[in-house]
């Protein structure tokens, strides 16, 4: 353990001092991120890696179908095939060795916030060409402020109207960007 009162002679080499410091910094980082949800355990580790493995297999099959050609005359599939093989090999290693890694995060109740946010994003993209950007933007701002950000009703209404007005002035009136719009 690195103790700040330790005399300088106790540190044998610069490299070790830097490592101590790295640990100290890591500890601080961990402390700052205490709010992070707990890690998700071996099943999600394996699941995530299997997805990567599937991507690799899919890439390998797809690029093999494109034609590998020869080294003297590489086909369109040679390069993606090579990458896919690397993905497959590394994912396979990770499936075996990475079961007990702790770098995944569990989905929690607050992940619902992200899901709601995502729905508003898709909603904006879907409504934009139909009814212009003003109303969808206003709705998105309001939902994010009131329910995702837990602002008060009053400040949610004021800020969302104000922000969309600024966007309108900036994008439509000043920069004259051709956004689809209602008015």
């Amino acid at each position, binding site marked *: 353990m690195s103790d700040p009162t330790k005399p300088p002679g106790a540190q044998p080499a*610069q490299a070790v001092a830097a490592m101590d410091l790295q640990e100290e910094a890591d500890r601080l980082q961990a402390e700052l991120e205490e709010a992070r949800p707990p890690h998700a355990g071996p099943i999600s580790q394996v699941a995530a890696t299997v997805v990567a493995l599937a991507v690799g297999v899919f890439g390998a099959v797809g690029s093999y179908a494109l034609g590998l050609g020869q080294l003297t005359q590489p086909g369109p599939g040679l390069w993606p095939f090579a990458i896919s093989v690397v993905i497959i090999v590394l994912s396979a290693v990770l499936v075996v060795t990475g079961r007990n*890694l702790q770098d995944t995060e569990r989905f929690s109740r607050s992940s619902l*916030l992200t899901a709601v946010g995502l729905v508003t994003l898709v909603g904006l993209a879907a409504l934009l060409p139909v009814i212009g950007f003003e109303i969808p933007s206003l709705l998105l701002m309001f939902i994010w402020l009131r329910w995702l950000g837990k602002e008060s009703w009053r400040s949610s209404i004021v800020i969302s109207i104000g922000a969309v007005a600024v966007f309108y002035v900036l994008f439509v009136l000043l920069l004259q960007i051709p956004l689809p719009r209602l008015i």
Partner: protein
Amino acid sequence: MDISPILDGFGVVLEPTNLLYCLIGVIIGMLIGVLPGLGPGATIAILLPITYGIGPVSAIIMLAGIFYGAQYGGTITSVLLRLPGEASSVVTVFDGFALAKQGKAGTALGIAAIGSFIGGTVSIIGLTLVAPVVAGFALDFGPPEYAALGILGVLLISSIGNGNKLKAIIAACIGLLIATVGRDTFTGAERFTFGSLNLAEGIDFIPIAMGLFGLSEILYNLEERHNKVHSPAKVGNVWPSRKDLGQAKGAIGRGSLIGFVLGVLPGGGAVLSSLAAYALEKRRAKQPERFGRGAVEGVAAPETANNAAATSSFIPLLTLGIPANATMALMFGALLIQGIQPGPQLVTEHPDVFWGVVNSMYIGNILLLIMSIPMVGVFVRILRVRPAIMAPITVLITLLGAYTVRNQVYDIFLVIVFGVLGYLMKKFGFEPGPLVLAFVLGSMIESSARQGLLIFGGDPTGFFTRPISGTVFALVVIVAAWPLIRKAIRRKPTDRVEEKIS
């Protein structure tokens, strides 16, 4: 050395529009450094569509300003809130926050600003001297060398970042795979397009960067770290006293050098250099126990080093065309959008871009010094803006900005898809950075590798026998094996400790 292009570069910077974009860039950089949530990478990604509307020089000047401006802004949160705004400001927290608790927050900020300014400026001078030499050396590079350098770059970024190395390399390979989507330039065959016309042209860099860096971070932050309002410590006089300056002088000088040298290395140059500079000062100090309890050098050294490193990390990008970190990958993409290929030809073919951007950093650093010392109060007040309010505004800028690039809703959906992918990657411990970097370099690596094969008549051993590409591939092997080597080195000290205990 012919200095007339350098002087012409100053002419470019001093054009009013470029000065304005420099100012906008550094202000945005300061702001996002201070505001929790978005980092410089996310911000640059979100603002990429703007670069379509303005010229290449102005665009890169502004994006560069955001990048080094954030290094200044990050200091403020480290010192006042004990929250490092940037990974490279983590060590600043130790002594910076201790000083703030003693009521000397102003001193810490003042010293950090002066150190940042000196570190940045020393590094720009170094960049001015070194970059043309490296570029001149790299002019003889052929396709095999570029293939090797590209692979080395991807591997270094993947292996130096934090997090699991295997996962990072897998992410990078998926980035390489995504880069192959679309029409193959050699044979004209359509790859992985599934008959979609949108995919036939390949996937554009902007939606990938905006989604993976920008939107994913916003989605990720929605889950937590919300509604946390901190009250910052009071900031008194920011002008450091003569005694403080005298104490920090050596740390600033050494920090500049460490930052400049380590910043050139791919991967976490700025982070590594701030750690190294802090460690060196602590080791050199007559009373190392002062560190962590409010030593001025403990703020000056890392802040100087991270700024110097941020600047010198432009060297590999501007001279070799190899981005040294994720943010530089965005710069690379921004230059490509403007039709400029970053690489050794940049100095000779686009001297206005090269010297314009390099020289703009002098101006930007002066602007940042002004903003961090006399005007620091303004930015301290911004600390009170709640992230809950910033999030929807940045989301709107991202989505509407993505639309404006080609006036297609398809691009918005692409951003959302990559935003979700980035969010899931973060949840499952895969970093999006290597993916984006590999995507940027992907087509370059593929075409150089294939051209190389043609040069060698289909004999892949040619990549290893040419002196420069062979050397680079040797480095690739060393980097790939590095985790094993380090494990062997690390084991020794712990063994000794265990022996002592037993």
